């Protein structure tokens, strides 16, 4: 509780003592936007951690071996993530639904277990030290990037591309019959999502002195976490996944008082939200929650008039 009291009573001290947490929320929000792009175009892709790893390792290794400036390192990581997104997208985007999800899981785990943990330059299982990390200064970069990312994604959804994505999500066959180049628009969403994930990965690496190739970082656990941001937050609106990322990143603080039972409470929270609001926290229906079957119905006379 102290956490939230401080947030309101002394925001400056809060900022100073929780800089890393705020930066992590920013990075998770960019990842959530990356997931938003694929979900918005009707693709259940869990590939983000793989592209994050590409962004992170590329930028850190460039810094280590060539001492190139940060902007160039991040740009190279983002570029490689985008190229890899294109290469992975070509074969897998024919797949739909759960099949796409599993194929992308195959991709991230083959990359992590097969390549990263076996290639000497990545430090294998020991991880990679990042001596030029800047945990405190990096936050401004993260927050500015987040605003830019959100604006660009929001503009995209409002434009021609966004309309095509929405059409594909709702009915791929109908979209195809309307002359929409389904394969092309899906690829655009997939590659943009890879670029955002690579960018978030490079930023995250810049905030940490250590690149850890663990499951929670670049494996399935991370992929599921990012999916949870988007689904729990609501994948119909740009801000939904960001709200999801904010809440889920803060859960350890929200449920601080539960001590060792925190994961149990978190699990209950996830189930409760998804059952009562399957469309996500930000979504149609305003603040109303869907009434469970056993909940007593209010009589019509007392119900507020719609709208």
């Amino acid at each position, binding site marked *: 509780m102290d956490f939230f009291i401080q947030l309101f009573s002394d925001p400056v001290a809060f900022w100073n003592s929780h800089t890393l947490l705020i930066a992590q929320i920013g990075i998770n929000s960019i990842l959530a936007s990356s997931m938003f792009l694929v979900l918005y175009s009707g693709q259940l892709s869990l590939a983000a951690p793989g592209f994050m790893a590409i962004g992170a390792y590329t930028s850190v290794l460039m810094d280590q071996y060539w001492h190139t400036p940060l902007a160039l390192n991040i740009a190279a990581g983002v570029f490689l993530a985008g190229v890899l997104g294109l290469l992975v997208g070509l074969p897998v985007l024919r797949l739909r639904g759960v099949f796409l999800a599993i194929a992308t899981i195959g991709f991230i785990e*083959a990359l992590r277990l097969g390549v990263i943990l076996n290639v000497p330059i990545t430090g294998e299982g020991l991880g990679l030290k990042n001596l030029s990390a800047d945990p405190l200064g990096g936050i401004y970069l993260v927050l500015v990037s987040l605003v830019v990312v959100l604006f660009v994604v929001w503009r995209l959804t409002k434009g021609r591309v966004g309309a095509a994505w929405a059409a594909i999500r709702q009915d791929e066959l109908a979209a195809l019959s309307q002359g929409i180049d389904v394969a092309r628009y899906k690829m655009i969403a997939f590659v943009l999502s890879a670029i955002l994930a690579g960018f978030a990965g490079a930023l995250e690496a810049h905030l940490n002195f250590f690149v850890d190739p663990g499951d929670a970082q670049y494996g399935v656990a991370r992929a599921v976490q990012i999916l949870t941001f988007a*689904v729990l937050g609501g994948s119909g609106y740009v801000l939904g996944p960001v709200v999801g990322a904010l809440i889920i990143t803060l859960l350890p603080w929200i449920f601080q008082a539960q001590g060792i039972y925190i994961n149990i409470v978190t699990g209950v929270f996830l189930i409760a939200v998804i059952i009562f609001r399957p469309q996500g926290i930000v979504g149609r229906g305003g603040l109303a929650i869907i009434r469970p079957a056993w909940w007593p119905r209010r009589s019509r006379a007392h119900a507020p008039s719609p709208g």
Partner: protein
Amino acid sequence: MDQQILNAIFIGSIYALFAVGYTLVFGVLDILNLAHSAVFMLGAALTYSLVINHGQSFLVACIIGVAASGLMGLVIEHVCLRPLRRRRAPPIAALISTVGLALIIVAAIEQGQRGTLFGWLWVDGANSVAFPPGTIPNPTWHIGDLTLEASKVAVIPISVALMLALGYVIRYTQVGRALRAVAENPRAARLMGLDVDRMISLTVVISSALGGVAGILFGVALGDISPYIGRDNVEVRGLAVIVLGGMGSIPGAVVGGYLLGLIEVFAVVALGSGARGGVAFAALFLMLVLRPQGLFGAQLREKI
């Protein structure tokens, strides 16, 4: 080499048994039950705890362990799946609710210490434990170069028998016919007078009980029981298995399980132990790209 092939068949049996439950739920509901690996772990942990901390005999512990896993299936259905079906939520929502339940199950075991809320269930926290030698009779034979441990060898007939029994039930009995009808078309099944919700409950219970058996076999044979055995060993490999065999296909999951066991063992022999995980997922990725319906899948279903 013969020993390696034996190991492949042995670990493949566990993969297959686990994946059969996974694929059964997918075949009927088109949903990936991500709590399945947690149930796998729960079966092993509970059986261990009953023998070591509660002084039960191994057989009784196994029966209770399997029953509890099956019961967990009911929890999965009533907490994670049925409320979402009622609300016509997209199947992606079930991914989140089952992940939530898996988190709860793993956390409950992980926090189990003497004196905590789940101390009766598990007292070893996040540690990996094994049955002390002598708890379970485990004679070992040597035939030529082969070393045969009873606890590992027994895995093979037990899993094969269970999978054959499941195949028989699904193919030849009234209940199996009803299950297949629900999988084919739930609405038509309901119109034919089938209690669809009940058949789905039954599916998830059978699936979870099989997952529990797989967990117990794994824990006993490999001497590794911890809150993370499901997540680390079978969660994603189970996906690889059902994709290799064809999603929703039970014979496919069986063949896929043994195939993955063989692929992994040969990868270790040919490329070193580091290749074990990577090769499995590369195979999964290639399979989906080249033949998305798997070895035995008839057609691709296009649902999220």
